[in-house]
């Protein structure tokens, strides 16, 4: 059996196309916050540079981190927030009784998420270059595997939060926004793992994003040999993706047993 039929994925994607082409506010929401982050953090970094000017890479570390973290955050939201939207609009039952597979639903959020992320990352990168002369292309070829690892991790986190919403219903909604920020402190986003207290460091090394951000800083410091970072991130990502897929299936089954799919709607 073919699990993902492109025409049905297109149908699901069309829905977002309709929403985003009409609603200026939605578009603003996608673009506004990341841009704000970039501007504010860029200024903070500039200020720190003025206080202590012997490390010029500090600004690029920070700007790179902002752009990269947004990728992670967006990827996870593209899944969990799409699901919440069906929930809020009482469309969940319509969606669940349509002949689409979970894989197709997830695939459509991938496509929509990827498009969004691509557009926003581009805007942020251009802005970072214009405002702060930060050139993300300095990361060169490593950019692509770093990007893919973040994307993948974001999707896993999105599936995880959606699974939690299956299990805990409306009370878990806030997780759709919160989870990336809960992981952030142990993901070495803005500082290296070595800054963390000893007992937290092993936790950080279990997060795929940690290797992405460490890798990014390594590249920006002129270190080209980051294959080991990439491999560790990819390995962990594959592990989590499989584990979370199983968890997702279990939560979906539990929701079916508790009659929660319909109850979430009412």
């Amino acid at each position, binding site marked *: 059996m073919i699990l993902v039929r492109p*025409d*049905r994925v*297109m*149908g*699901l994607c*069309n*829905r977002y196309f*309709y*929403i985003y082409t*009409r*609603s200026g506010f939605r578009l603003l929401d996608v673009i506004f916050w990341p841009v704000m982050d970039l501007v504010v953090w860029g200024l903070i970094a500039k200020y720190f540079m003025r206080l202590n000017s012997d490390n010029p890479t500090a600004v690029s570390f920070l700007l790179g981190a902002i752009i990269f973290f947004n990728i992670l955050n967006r990827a996870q939201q593209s899944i969990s927030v799409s699901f919440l*939207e*069906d929930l809020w*609009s*009482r*469309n*969940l*039952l*319509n969606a*669940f*009784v*349509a*002949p*689409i*597979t979970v894989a197709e639903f997830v695939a459509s959020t991938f496509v929509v998420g990827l498009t969004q992320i691509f557009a926003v990352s581009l805007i942020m990168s251009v802005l970072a270059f214009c405002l702060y002369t930060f050139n993300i292309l300095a990361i060169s070829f490593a950019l692509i595997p770093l990007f893919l690892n973040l994307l993948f991790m974001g999707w896993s986190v999105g599936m995880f939060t959606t699974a939690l919403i299956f299990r805990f219903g409306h009370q878990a909604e806030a997780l759709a926004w919160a989870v990336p920020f809960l992981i952030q402190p142990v993901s070495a986003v803005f500082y290296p793992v070595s800054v963390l207290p000893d007992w937290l460091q092993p936790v950080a090394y279990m997060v795929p994003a940690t290797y992405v951000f460490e890798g990014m800083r390594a590249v920006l410091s002129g270190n080209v040999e980051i294959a080991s970072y990439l491999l560790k991130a990819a390995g962990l990502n594959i592990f989590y993706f499989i584990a979370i897929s199983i968890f997702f299936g279990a939560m979906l*089954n539990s929701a*079916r*047993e*508790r*009659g929660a*799919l*319909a109850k979430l*709607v*009412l």
Partner: protein
Amino acid sequence: MAADIESEVETIVSVEKLHKSFGKAVAIDEISFQIKRGEVVGLLGANGAGKSTTIQILLGLIAQTSGKVSIFGMDPWKKRVAVLQRCNFSSAYVALPYNLKVIENLDVFAQLYGVSNRKKKIEELLQLFEVDHLAQKMTGGLSSGESTRVNLCKALLNDPEFLLLDEPTASLDPDIADKVRKLLAQVQAERHMTVLYTSHNMRDVQELCQRVLFLHQGKIIAEGSSEAILSHFGQETLEEVFIAIARNQVTTSLLSGEHN
């Protein structure tokens, strides 16, 4: 219909000893029934009788505790996509996304159901339910009568062989409810569609359904045509039967050997 002919008609839905409990609470208590192609069956019962639970098990949205369900001879969960492709569902309690236009919503669902010639199909349905003037309106802005009719358009997009309706007229005023019933009856007759219709509204069931399953506290306590049920309980209208059962004024022993 003569008995010997009846047995040759294809069975669309078969439910055997279906049981569902939520924790300790029993929602469906070992019910069995069959629906043949082209039949319109009403699932009648008070609030909490188990109507929605039954429908949702048929749609694979709820997992049963025990018992067997098959639709078109397939398990609705294991063969989910194949079954759902030939079914559709609507209810007063579900809605289409509010932030899309009516026509956009219908177009998205037409795509999901793989409808060919979507534009034409959607136009036809909008006209049939007399809501073609709403095509460009935002779905969130519709009145409940309008949105019920748009939901029914969605439910007929894929020319379902089996249509499940969970209290579709619940939020309608009597005039529109009557209109919707007549339209449904018309569409059903034209397409020889199989329909399972839940309601706590006697009018609905009496008018539309050839056969009624009377559900009470998770059990089917009576089954047959409206007339058969009336004579069984010695009441004049289904309304009276309903009230009598709801107040436990009649013995709710199973009706004769009509079950298979």
